[in-house]
Every structure is written in structure tokens, then in C-alpha cells.
């Protein structure tokens, strides 16, 4: 995040100097603004001329300004007082922090932590507060910036919606929750923020709840997340009792210094992983995320691409001590976290192929990229993961907002039916979308390249081209990452072709969106290009040394007791080149298929008429002149299209829709059925039945006794005499 303060540094410097540590100490204001804004919009929004959106924009803007100020203060801390010895360039009045600084600082810069008593239990107070360090600052920056842009974008995008005000209210609430989450100083607070963002997601996915599918999607999202939350709740509980505190720093320290046994740490890590899987759309709890595209597009951009879904990544990063120890990441070659990330990234990328809905492509792409981040964390490449989070936020938001801009024009998300050739109609959208695509595909210069490359380096799987000094040797992960890189290039090429090239297949004439939409697009598009520059690799000789690894210096807490001592892999030119080639190969294959072959059929065409069958491939092959070309064609049609897009992707899709998604639905259906059985058979028949039967038996025995009462006085007398006799007889015998 410090990255952006580098960009905006010049303006922000003046303010920050005067305030010194004030913004760091009072970072809680950052989430308070949107929180207040939420209430204001909810209560009074409709009375404002712009339906409350201005309040939201103002609040998020304020948060953004504060966030930037905080970032600047933090950077100045790091650069000035830190051990990494940055130049004086940013060291603006590195005033010593006078407030409680937790986490024994052994050469590193300690986080700023303030808290109040939130609740008392067992005469111990449990705090709530802020924990501001590089990670938090980075997240604040990303969240406030994307949120601000999405706010602006939305004023146009959802203009005229019947629940315009409500939409902005929830955007504010979401922003507040997310900021609360990332500044949380305790796991308990994180839990709170975690669930709150889930609710906002629920409310915004279901924004158009008149349609059943939308509300179903909202429910599904919430429900799936709730399953993961179970893990979070249990994990937090385990950590609380193992570490004796909810404090993030305390928990990490306990995990690292051996206070917790390995078993406990592992159990906690496993539970938390479940939470991550649902929140960050990891395989196999990812199915809610594509459905969540039912929400308005700005929401998808903000929540389901840039911020909320990375909450899981953030949590792993926050509690990295627990995960690092629990999964024994260091010195290993495989662990659950990396595996989940790897599988997810592959599954996501292959699924992105078969979608016709542009947003669903992006959704699966997001899943895939989130898998990348988890993979990175799983292999110990902490900074790389967060750097990717950082860059991904911009380019994926850019892509989503771009797709929104498109749909705004064509009133549809279906690429095959209603798009094509939009390049001419929507130049701004097209250009920014291309920037995002290139960044996502990981081509050099663009931000995605830098972060993706760092992840690949971090796997440590490139050992046979020269040691990289990584945390382990996760060769499988490296392979997965490379395959994904190729797939990513391919599916994005497909999207670009179907959307912007060929001829328009929809109705009417699409128009470019207004400035409130294009301006955010350009900002994000630019960021998609430059965001990668703040973390040039250490060995990157093209820039001065002081420009390298800034992100690492600002964000990663080195040398503090609450963060594991992880190794940092040495970058390798060879790997970078290989990864670029792989990505290019994917792009090229797809480009050949669409730009050459499909286009040749008709500008209106979206696929080849006969479909990618082997017989067809062989027939066309005879006409090919260039071996090279043939080879690519073959590669693409047989391997990528014929296999990946065909059986594999379709198969995955089938599994996805019929098995995994089905399981989710089945769980729901079965629960309801179980409920029915329990209620109708057990509760009403057995439990209630016993009660009613008791009544009936009482009634019946009353009736029997009543028969004694015949009305005949001598029978009464007989009863009396016999009873007296028998009583006396029995007593005489017994006593």
C-alpha cells in the first residue's frame, strides 16, 4: 500500500509530517467514517439530492485520505526507524511512537496497537482495537481506493435503481466492515469483521431480490460462508485457549515460541483453513462465488474481486505464525494450504474457459487468482502473496468494472449473444480492459507480471536452474502455477475476442459509458500497469537499488516476535522468461483459434461451427502450411481446446455443477428433509406424542376408575369393607 503513497507521495507529504503518529494511532477513524455514513444513508439518505451517494463518497473519500496519511506515516516509520535502512527520501520526521507498541521489536518495526476493553469475562478484559502495521496499511489503501472508485462508478451504474440509496448504504457498511476487519487487533474482531462483510455480500448479491435466482445466490453465498465460519469460530476458540488471548500478536507469538503444541497449532490452522476456503472461494467451497455474480457489477468488483474475497488471504497473512508452524511450511515440499491453492488455481482457470457470461469468466478467474495467493502463502512466499493481492485488486477491479461498463451498454452479460466488436463503440472501456487483461495474463511491465513471478519464485521449485533459497521446494506448485499462467492468458484472450472483436451481435447501438464510469476505469487501468513497480525484485538491475523491494520493506514485518522468520527466495531471470513464454503460448493459442480461425468463419461467429473435434482438426490440418503454425494449431485444438476446454474443462465443469455444487444444494435439501423428518416424525409423533399419550392414559385410567363408581350404594359398601379387610390383612401379614 505504501506503493500508492509513493505515487501520491508528493501531495500527502505535507499533511503527514505535521501529524506524525496521529493517523497511526487513530486508524479506527478510517472505518468509523463509512460506518457513520452507513447509518446516515440508511436514515436520511433518501432526503439528500443524490440519494445518499454523496455521503458515501465523502466518507470513503475521507477514509481514503486518512488511509493514505496513515500509510505515509507508516512508511516514514519504516524508512526512518526501521532496520532496513531505506533512504531519507520518505523518512519524513520519523517521530518515535509514544504509544503502546506491542510485539517485541528485535530490529524490526513494531506494529501500532491500541485497544479498549470490549468485554470482560472471568475478570479478564478482552480488548478491541487497532493493529496497524504494513499489512494493515496496505489493505486499508487497497480497500479505500477501490471502494472509492466503485462508489464513483456506481453513481452512474446503478443510477435510477429503485434501491439506489440502499445500495450505497451497504457499500458504506461493507467498506466499514472490511476496514474494521483489516485493522483488527484481535482474532475476535477479525471474526466480527469477517462475518459482517459476509452479510454485506449477502445483501448486495441479493440486491435485486425480486428474482428468485438472485436471492438464492445470496443465500448460497451466505450459507457457504457460514460453513467456513464454523471453522473460524472453532479455530479462534482453539487459539484463544491455547494462547490465552485473542490478541493477534499474542496468538502469533504463542504459535511461534512453542507455547502451543504443534497439534493444537495444526488443529487451529486446519479450522481456519476451512474458513479461508469458503470466504476466499477455494476449491471445493468456491461454488458460491460465480453465483454471487448475480449482484450488481460494482459489487462484484469491490467485494467479490478486490477486497472481501481476499479476507481469507489477509487472515492467513495476519495469523501467519499459526499457519507457518501448523503446516510446517518451512523446509517442506507439500502442504495442505499450498495444495488447496494449487488445485483452486487450476480448477478456476479451466472453468473460466467454458463460461459465456463475462462476469462468470472473471469470477472463475478470481477464484484462480485467489488460489494463486493461497498457494503463495502455502509455500511461504508471504510478500509475494500480498503483493499479488495488491496488484490483483487493481487489475481485477478494472476488469470487472470494464465488464460492467460493457453490460451497461449492451444490457447483458452474455458474451456470445450480445457482445462482439465493442472495441469500436467503447474505446475507453476497451483500452482499460486490455490493460487489465495484460496485467492478469502476467505479461512483463504490467503489474500482474511482477507479483506472479514472485510467487513462482517463492515456490522454490525452480531449483534445477539454480537455487533460490526459498522456504521449501514446492515443485508441484510451480508446475500448477505455470499451467495456470498459460490458461489465464488463453481464457482472457477468448474474453477479449468475444467481447471487443468480431462484430456486434446484440441489439441496438452500444454507447461508451459516461465519465463517472470511465474515470475509475482509467485509474484502475493505470494502476494495473504501474502497481507492480513498487516491488522490483532485489536483483533487478534496471532500476536503482533504492527502488527495489519497497513493498517488501513496507509491508512485511521482519524481525518481530509475532512473525515467523521466513526465507526470501532469490529471483531468477530464467524463471521469469519461462513464465512469460508460457503465458504467451496460452495467449497465442487462443488468439490463433479466435482471431484467426473463428474470425475466418464469420465476424459474428463465436466458436467454430463443428466444434473442436479430432476429425475436424485432422481435416483442417492438411491445409496448414507452416509446421510451426500447425503445431500451435494442434497444440491448441488438441491440447488446450480439445482437451482442456473440451473434456477436461467440461468434465471439471460437470463435476463442479453436478457434484460440488450439487453437494451444496443437497446439503440444503437434505437438511430441510431431515428437518421435516425430525419435526413430523420425531417431534410431533414421539416427543409430543409421549406427552399427549400421558394425557390419554390419564384419561383412560380415569375412565376405568370411574367404572367403580356405579351409583349402587352397596357396591360402594363392598369396596369399603373389602378395602378395609385387605388393608388390614396385608398389614397383619407384612408387619
Amino acid at each position, binding site marked *: 500500500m505504501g506503493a500508492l503513497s509513493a505515487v501520491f507521495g508528493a501531495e500527502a507529504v505535507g499533511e503527514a509530517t505535521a501529524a506524525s503518529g496521529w493517523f497511526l494511532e487513530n486508524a479506527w477513524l478510517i472505518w468509523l467514517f463509512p460506518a457513520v455514513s452507513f447509518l446516515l444513508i440508511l436514515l436520511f439518505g433518501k432526503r439528500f439530492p443524490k440519494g445518499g451517494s454523496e455521503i458515501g463518497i465523502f466518507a470513503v473519500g475521507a477514509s481514503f485520505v486518512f488511509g493514505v496519511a496513515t500509510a505515509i506515516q507508516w512508511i516514514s516509520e519504516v524508512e526512518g526507524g526501521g532496520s532496513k535502512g531505506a533512504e531519507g527520501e520518505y523518512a519524513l520526521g520519523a517521530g518515535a511512537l509514544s504509544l503502546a507498541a506491542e510485539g517485541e521489536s528485535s530490529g524490526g518495526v513494531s506494529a501500532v496497537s491500541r485497544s479498549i476493553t470490549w468485554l470482560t469475562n472471568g475478570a479478564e478484559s478482552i480488548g478491541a482495537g487497532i493493529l496497524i502495521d504494513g499489512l494493515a496499511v496496505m489493505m486499508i489503501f487497497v480497500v479505500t481506493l477501490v471502494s472509492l472508485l466503485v462508489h464513483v462508478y456506481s453513481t452512474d451504474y446503478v443510477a435510477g435503481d429503485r434501491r439506489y440509496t440502499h445500495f450505497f448504504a451497504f457499500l458504506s457498511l461493507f467498506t466499514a466492515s472490511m476496514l474494521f476487519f483489516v485493522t483488527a487487533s484481535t482474532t475476535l474482531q477479525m471474526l466480527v469483521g469477517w462475518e459482517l462483510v459476509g452479510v454485506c455480500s449477502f445483501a448486495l448479491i441479493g440486491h435485486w431480490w425480486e428474482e428468485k435466482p438472485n436471492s438464492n445466490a445470496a443465500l448460497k453465498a451466505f450459507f457457504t460462508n457460514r460453513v467456513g465460519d464454523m471453522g473460524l469460530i472453532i479455530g479462534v476458540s482453539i487459539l484463544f485457549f491455547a494462547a490465552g488471548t485473542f490478541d493477534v500478536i499474542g496468538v502469533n507469538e504463542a504459535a511461534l515460541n512453542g507455547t502451543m503444541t504443534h497439534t493444537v497449532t495444526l488443529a487451529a490452522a486446519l479450522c481456519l483453513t476451512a474458513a479461508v476456503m469458503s470466504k476466499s472461494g477455494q476449491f471445493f467451497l468456491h461454488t458460491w462465488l460465480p453465483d454471487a455474480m448475480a449482484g450488481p457489477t460494482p459489487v462484484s468488483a469491490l467485494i467479490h474481486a478486490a477486497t472481501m474475497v481476499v479476507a481469507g488471504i489477509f487472515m492467513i497473512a495476519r495469523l501467519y505464525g499459526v499457519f507457518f508452524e501448523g503446516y510446517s511450511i518451512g523446509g517442506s515440499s507439500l502442504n495442505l494450504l499450498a495444495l488447496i491453492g494449487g488445485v483452486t488455481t487450476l480448477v478456476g482457470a479451466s472453468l473460466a474457459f467454458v463460461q459465456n457470461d463475462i462476469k462468470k469468466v472473471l469470477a472463475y478467474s478470481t477464484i484462480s487468482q485467489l488460489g494463486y495467493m493461497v498457494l503463495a502463502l502455502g509455500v511461504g512466499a508471504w510478500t509475494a502473496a500480498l503483493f499479488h493481492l495488491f496488484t490483483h485488486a487493481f487489475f481485477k477491479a478494472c476488469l470487472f468494472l470494464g465488464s460492467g461498463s460493457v453490460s451497461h451498454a449492451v444490457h447483458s452479460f452474455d458474451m456470445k449473444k450480445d457482445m462482439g466488436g465493442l472495441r469500436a463503440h467503447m474505446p475507453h472501456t476497451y483500452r482499460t480492459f486490455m490493460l487489465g487483461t495484460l496485467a492478469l495474463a502476467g505479461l512483463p511491465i504490467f503489474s500482474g507480471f511482477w507479483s506472479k513471478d514472485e510467487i513462482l519464485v517463492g515456490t522454490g521449485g525452480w531449483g534445477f536452474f539454480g537455487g533460490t533459497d526459498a522456504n521449501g521446494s514446492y515443485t508441484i506448485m510451480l508446475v500448477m502455477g505455470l499451467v495456470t499462467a498459460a490458461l489465464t492468458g488463453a481464457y482472457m484472450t477468448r474474453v477479449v475476442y468475444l467481447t471487443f472483436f468480431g462484430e456486434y451481435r446484440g441489439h441496438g447501438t452500444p454507447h461508451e459509458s459516461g465519465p463517472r464510469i470511465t474515470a475509475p476505469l482509467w485509474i484502475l487501468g493505470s494502476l494495473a500497469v504501474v502497481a507492480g513497480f513498487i516491488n522490483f525484485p532485489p536483483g533487478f538491475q534496471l532500476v536503482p537499488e533504492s527502488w527495489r523491494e519497497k513493498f517488501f520493506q513496507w509491508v512485511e514485518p521482519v524481525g518481530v516476535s509475532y512473525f515467523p522468520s521466513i526465507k526470501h527466495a532469490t529471483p531468477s531471470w530464467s524463471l521469469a522468461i519461462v513464465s512469460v513464454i508460457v503465458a504467451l503460448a496460452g495467449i497465442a493459442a487462443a488468439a490463433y483459434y479466435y482471431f484467426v480461425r473463428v474470425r475466418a468463419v464469420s465476424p459474428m461467429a463465436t466458436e467454430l461451427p463443428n466444434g473442436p473435434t479430432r476429425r475436424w482438426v485432422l481435416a483442417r490440418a492438411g491445409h496448414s502450411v507452416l509446421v510451426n503454425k500447425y503445431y500451435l494449431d494442434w497444440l491448441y485444438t488438441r491440447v488446450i481446446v480439445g482437451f482442456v476446454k473440451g473434456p477436461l474443462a467440461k468434465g471439471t465443469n460437470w463435476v463442479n455443477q453436478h457434484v460440488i455444487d450439487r453437494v451444496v444444494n443437497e446439503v440444503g435439501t437434505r437438511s430441510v428433509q431431515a428437518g421435516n423428518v425430525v419435526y413430523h416424525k420425531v417431534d410431533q409423533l414421539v416427543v409430543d406424542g409421549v406427552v399427549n399419550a400421558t394425557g390419554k392414559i390419564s384419561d383412560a385410567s380415569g375412565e376405568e376408575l370411574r367404572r367403580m363408581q356405579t351409583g349402587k350404594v*352397596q357396591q360402594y359398601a*363392598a369396596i369399603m*369393607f*373389602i378395602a*378395609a*379387610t*385387605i388393608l*388390614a*390383612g396385608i398389614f*397383619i401379614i407384612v408387619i
Partner: protein
Amino acid sequence: MIAEHVAFGIIAAVMVAAASRVVTTRDIMHAALYLVIVLAGVAALFLLVGAEFTGITQVLIYIGAVIVLFLFGIMLTRSDFGDNEDTDYKRKFPALLTAALLLAVMVVALVDRFGTEKLPDDLSPQTTAQVSDELFSQFIVPFEAVSVLLLAALIGAIVVARREEGG
């Protein structure tokens, strides 16, 4: 002593026989007359054990008053004299069983406790004076209460049994 035993034996036998007839005869007048025999037997037993005042009272009240009441009752209710099917229930076994069980229990209890006890040999008559001394000192309160009781019974019986004017 022997005489006493013999006398008791005869009286007892007659009483049991008469009592059995009281509860079995189908002629209601006969039942009343058998009852007289039983009551007389009781009076005789009282005299036999020296309870002379009680014995005489027994004769006076029971045979003199109660039996007459019964006869009035029989006549006022216009019961059929002579052999009457209607006096008893058809099924007598439960009643018999009850009585027999009760008797068994009583006999067991009595034999257990009083099996060997004898009455004092000298059954000197307890004089009326003794009785009245005791009655009017120790038992003056119940005595007075009984007088109220009799009065209440009298009034009540009259009210209940009286034919209502015009009714």
C-alpha cells in the same frame, strides 16, 4: 363355671343361627323377629358378664324401641310380607367372600392376641351406680352431646319423614 360355659354356648349358638336367618330369610317380618332373638341374646350375654345396666338398657332400647321402629318402617313402606324374591341380590358370592375374608382376618388377629386370655373368674356385676358415677363425671360432655344428638335426630327425622303439606 360350667353353667356359664353351657349358657354361653347355648346363647351363642342361638344368636349365630338367628343372625344368619336375619340376613337370609326372605320374609321381612321373620327377619325382624329373628333380630329380636339376636338382640335378646346380646342382652343375655351382657348379663352373663355382669353388665347388668347395659343388658337392661339393651332390652329396653332395642327390643322396646328399635324393633318397634323397624316394624313401623316395614309397614309404612308397605313391604310385602311373606316369602319375597326381591329381598336379596341374586349374586351373593361377593358378599359372602367379603364377610368370610373379614372374619378370617378378625379371627387371626383375635386368636393371636387374646387366645389364652380369660375373663376374671369373679365377674361381679358392675352396678348401675358405678356406671352412672362414671358416666356423669368422666363422660358428662359426650353425654350432653348425645342428648343434643338425639334431639337433632328427632327433629331431623320428623322433618324428613313428614309428608309435606299438599305434597
